[in-house]
């Protein structure tokens, strides 16, 4: 006789949408950390310059932006005299966000061999990407602070300064991470079936940068287009990343367009994206091994 039906594991075809097994994920937390370590170490070991690359990309990009957007195109920088500081702020943040999306979007494709052979909560992989990108972000934040210091003390530019909003920094980072995670998961879930989407992502992220206030301040958009092309202003304002970047800039540089309303809106949208991402990811996770 069977006795009580107490099973530890039950596998069935359907699973409710909201089944996120947090206990499972917690059990695999060592694995998450090991993945982060693996990504970091393998990156380090495979390049000559190693972690120096973390500095080179933002530096170069800042220089180019300063020249092209600040110098050539004369796009305003919200009243900050050293445009490099302005651009680097946007770049540092945007790098993290873009990395989160692009790396998460290929997580299934890049790891088919592991996923096809062993079980672990699939979400551990995108989570590990978010965390390992944080390390890179941390390094680039240091670079940013150093650059700020350089322009402040050595170049004597006092047009920027910290404000109390700097305390919102953790929230800013969290919002970025979750948006990147959510969008990345949606894309990666869809690319298991429709591969062209992967190309769209790279392209899309680039476009998205121009639709966010990375290389120009929101204030100048409102000023220039507020009258005739309000739809443009609204589009940019409705972009959840806009609030993130503006909040960051007002915190660290004292110049930005901030409103609690915008921040609240951004937070709400972030959570919606996250939930959507987790749902689609879950739905696809169990069957993607068959379709990829």
């Amino acid at each position, binding site marked *: 006789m*069977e*006795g009580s039906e*107490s*099973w*530890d*594991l*039950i*596998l*069935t*075809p359907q*699973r409710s949408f909201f089944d996120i097994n947090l206990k499972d994920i917690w*059990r*695999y937390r*060592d*694995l998450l950390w*090991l*993945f982060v*370590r*693996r990504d970091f*170490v*393998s990156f380090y*070991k*495979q390049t000559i310059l190693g972690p120096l690359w973390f500095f080179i990309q933002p530096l170069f990009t800042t220089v180019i932006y300063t020249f092209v957007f600040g110098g050539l195109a004369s796009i305003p920088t919200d009243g900050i005299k050293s445009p490099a500081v302005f651009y680097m702020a946007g770049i540092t943040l945007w790098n993290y966000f873009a990395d989160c999306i692009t790396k998460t979007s290929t997580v299934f494709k890049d790891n088919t*061999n*592991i*996923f*096809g*052979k*062993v*079980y*672990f909560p699939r979400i551990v992989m995108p989570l590990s990407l978010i965390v390992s990108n944080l390390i890179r972000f941390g390094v680039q934040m240091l670079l940013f602070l150093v650059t700020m210091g350089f322009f402040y003390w050595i170049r004597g530019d006092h047009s920027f300064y910290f404000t109390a909003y700097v305390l919102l920094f953790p929230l800013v980072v969290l919002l970025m991470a979750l948006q990147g995670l959510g969008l990345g998961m949606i894309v990666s879930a869809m690319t298991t*079936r*429709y591969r062209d989407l992967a190309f769209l992502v790279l392209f899309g992220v680039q476009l998205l940068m121009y639709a966010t206030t990375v290389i120009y301040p929101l204030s100048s958009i409102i000023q220039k287009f507020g009258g005739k092309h309000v739809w443009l202003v609204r589009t940019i304002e409705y972009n959840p990343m806009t609030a993130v970047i503006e909040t960051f800039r007002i915190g660290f540089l004292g110049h930005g367009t901030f409103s609690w309303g915008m921040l609240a809106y951004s937070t709400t949208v972030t959570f919606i994206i996250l939930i959507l991402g987790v749902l689609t990811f879950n739905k696809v996770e*169990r*069957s993607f*091994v*068959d*379709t990829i």
Partner: protein
Amino acid sequence: MSVAIKVENLSKAYQLGEFGTGTVSRDIERWFARVRGKDDPFLKIGETNDRAVKGGSDVVWSLKDINLEIKQGDAVGIIGRNGAGKSTFLKILSRVTAPTTGSVKARGRIASLLEVGTGFHPELTGKENIYLNGAILGMRKKEIDRKMDQIVDFSGVERYLDTPVKRYSSGMYVRLAFAVAAHLDSEILIVDEVLAVGDAEFQAKCLGKMKDVSSTQGRTVLFVSHNMAAIQKLCNSGLLLNKGQIVVDGPIRKALDVYMNDGGRGSAEYLFDADKLQSDLAFVTRVRVEDLEGRLLSEIPIGRPWRVRMSIRVNEAIRGMVVGLGMINNLEVPVRTSWNLPRDFQPGNYTVTFEEQHVVFSSGRYRLLAGLSVKGQSIQYLDDNMFVSFSDVIENMNGSVVKSDNGVILNQMKMFVEEDI
């Protein structure tokens, strides 16, 4: 004895072909049907996974209506031809893929070894990979710390622990990978054909470890392998799958017997399509298993002399061709290979005879292989379900043979008894 795994009405369907532009519309159709509460219009009933037949629909049932119970502590050998559904079954149990219908229920943790070295990263050292691989397989870091010494000891690569794995030889790689997996600590362990790794010594070690895991540690083990000898040693229970369905679910001996004797419809003459091979230098057209009077024998009584006659057509003049005949027993052990000394052949038809008058093999079915080669280069290698079978009937042995399956060879040695003075 409690039930460790209970499988009810388990089925798995796979979609064949490309997933290109057709599937967006299909997905919408499917979703729409599901929303309306109707069946998925694309899962047709009845197609089984027979690779030789191109089916009508492009959905294939890799597993169909599997119902079984595995008791705790069982060591189950899952056998079957390629394509029978063994790996799919294991994948579902391992949560790598989901069932299409039905359910699987289990008590205890399931740890799977479907491939050695899953997740190994070439740039990381051996030690780092032990942690990574162990964690992927489900171990906690503390657990790995505790077992590190045992794992390293088992693998035998202690000297190289701090070297990146990309520098390891393939043997070392595999030993390390298996060592990690061998120390998994779960109630249910699933192993898929991974014992065919490493050299003979290591394979024996792995087998020993698996035996230890299932008998002394009392864990439930599910084991897929083509190595019938290993399966027999390790398992007490057998599951024979064919085309996605259960053929035998019972003692291992029974499953093995049915598997081995599948297809033995008593043929003794094998014909080969000459038209397909017209372009070859030489090829075998017919193989007959008969006694010395030329009678076709699908089952040879023990003690009767027998021979294999091959008809060969030679298309071009060949110098130094060797004709060979191999016999392999039901545990996939090669028993004997015979061949002639290299001989020149002019174009024409030939009959090559391999005669056995002395050695008496034990009863059972042996697979025959035929081969033609010149200077070590193979012209034809024929492994096409040809068999010679020896029955239980004992003939002409003067009472020297009593049991038909008493060992591999039944002949007696020449023996003397002398009283010491």
